[in-house]
């Protein structure tokens, strides 16, 4: 049973549009949710994260919306730029264990 699910698998938007990446999880003990951005051939970079006590986290053009009751979260990228084209991973952990569980990723393409 996959603990963290992401959708869609791939997403294409035009420059300037808002990209919405979705994530859901199974384990109710998860309380920390980071999003990572990965370019081909590179290690993932921590983009933004949220803890389960919050329902929204904003950092520039990146915003996480979190719904604890439904065990869902989403990453919104506003004013998308071609440089945002990358694979985005949603992850989840119980901070007591420190074990991060990753989703399968969403490949985002931003067309100029």
């Amino acid at each position, binding site marked *: 049973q996959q603990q963290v699910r992401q959708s869609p698998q791939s997403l294409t938007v035009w420059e300037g549009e808002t990209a919405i990446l979705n994530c859901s999880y199974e384990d109710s003990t998860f309380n*920390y949710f980071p999003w990572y951005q990965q370019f081909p051939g590179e290690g993932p970079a*921590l983009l933004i994260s949220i*803890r389960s006590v919050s329902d929204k986290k904003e950092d520039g053009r990146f915003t996480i919306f979190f719904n604890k009751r439904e065990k869902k979260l989403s990453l919104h990228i506003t004013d998308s730029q071609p440089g945002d084209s990358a694979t985005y991973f949603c*992850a989840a952990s119980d901070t007591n264990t*420190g074990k*991060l569980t990753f989703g399968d990723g969403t490949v985002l393409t931003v067309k100029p």
Partner: protein
Amino acid sequence: AQTIHQWPVAEIKAVGSPLSLGCTIKGKSSPNLYWYWQATGGTLQQLFYSITVGQVESVVQLNLSASRPKDDQFILSTEKLLLSHSGFYLCAWSLDAEQFFGPGTRLTVL
């Protein structure tokens, strides 16, 4: 500022040969260290983690082993490579919940 270095950058090895990959963290004292494996186009799977020198916990058994000989060093190794070991190996560090990844090592087993 903290830096994380992985070596080698890439490796091509024969099935059955030994392997040693390394990771060094500079600028952080006593970090938690992690090894991850990523198949091409796939997700990240945690393999090992260590919270202190000499102590390593296995998360997934893939005929690999890990060691932490120094506070700032984490080693991944095996005596006999399998084709299934091919992929991207990533080292990460953390002091609390946030994990930060290194540049990775691309391993191709032929």
